[in-house]
C-alpha cells in the first residue's frame, strides 16, 4: 500500500473523530412517555381483566353448582315422596304378637 492510499484510509477510519453530536427531535421524549404510559395502562387493564374474568368464572361456577345441587335435591325429594306413597303399602304394626 502506498503512503497516499494509507493516509487516505486512515483519514476515513478516523473521520468521525471531533464530529459534533447529533441531537434527537425535541418531541421524542413526549412520544416515549406516551409509549410508557400505554404499556402501564395495558399492564393494569390486562391484570384487571384477568381478575374480573376469574371472578366472573368463579361466580358462574358457584351458581351452576348451587343450581344443580338444589334441583337434584328437589327432584330426589319429590321422587322419594312419590315412590313412598305409590309403591309402599301403609305399614300397620300390630303389637299383638301373641294371640
Amino acid at each position, binding site marked *: 500500500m502506498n503512503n497516499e492510499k494509507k493516509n487516505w484510509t486512515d483519514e476515513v477510519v478516523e473521520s468521525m473523530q471531533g*464530529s459534533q453530536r447529533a441531537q434527537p427531535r425535541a418531541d*421524542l*421524549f413526549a412520544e416515549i412517555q406516551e409509549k*410508557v404510559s400505554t404499556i402501564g395502562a395495558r399492564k393494569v387493564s390486562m391484570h384487571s381483566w384477568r381478575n374480573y374474568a376469574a371472578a366472573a368464572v368463579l361466580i358462574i361456577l358457584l351458581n351452576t353448582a348451587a343450581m344443580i345441587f338444589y334441583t337434584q335435591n328437589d327432584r330426589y325429594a319429590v321422587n322419594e315422596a312419590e315412590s313412598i306413597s305409590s309403591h309402599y303399602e301403609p305399614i300397620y304394626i300390630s303389637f299383638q304378637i301373641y294371640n
Partner: protein
Amino acid sequence: MDGKQLIREIVKGNENAFEMLYNRFSTKVYNTALSYAKNIGDAEEITQDVFVKIYKGAGSFKGSASVEAWVYRITVNTSLNYLKKRNRFSFFKKAFPISQSVDFNHPGVLLERKEQAAMLFSVMDGLADRQKTAFILSYIESLPRQEVADIMEISLKAVESLLQRAKHNLRLKLEKTSPDQRKSQN
C-alpha cells in the same frame, strides 16, 4: 442526583427521574443508534425502544455496573436486534425497492470530512457485530477503551484485538473503493 439514584427513583415510578435520565443519556443513545442504523427515523425508533426498555427494566439494574455502561449495553443490543429485523425484510426491499439514499451523511460530521465519513459508514456494514460495536464505541462515540470493555463485558485486551481486526477489515474494504481505485476503474 447520580445515575443509580435516578434508576432507584424510576423503579418507584418517579416520572421526573425518568425525564432527567433521558436528558442525561438521550444524545448518547441517539448517536449510537444513528451509527448503527444510518437513518434518522430508525435511530429515533431505536432511541424510543431503548428508553422504554430502561423504564421497564429499571428494577433489574444491577448496582455493580455503571448506569452509563448499562444504558450503552441496552442501546447496542437494541440497535443490533433492530438491524437484524430490518435485514430480514431485505428480500422485500430488493423486490420492491424504496427510494433511500445510498450514502449516509451523519448530521454532526464536520463539513470537510463529509465525504470520508459517508465512505466510512458505507464500509462499516461489512464488519462483524462485535467488531462494529467496538469500533462505534471507540472511534465514533470516543469512549475510553476500559468503558468499551465494560459495556461489551469483555477484557481490555479483547477490545484492542477487536479494534485491530475492525480497522484491518475496514482498510481492506476502503482500498477497493479508494479514489485511485475508482479512477483506474473509470
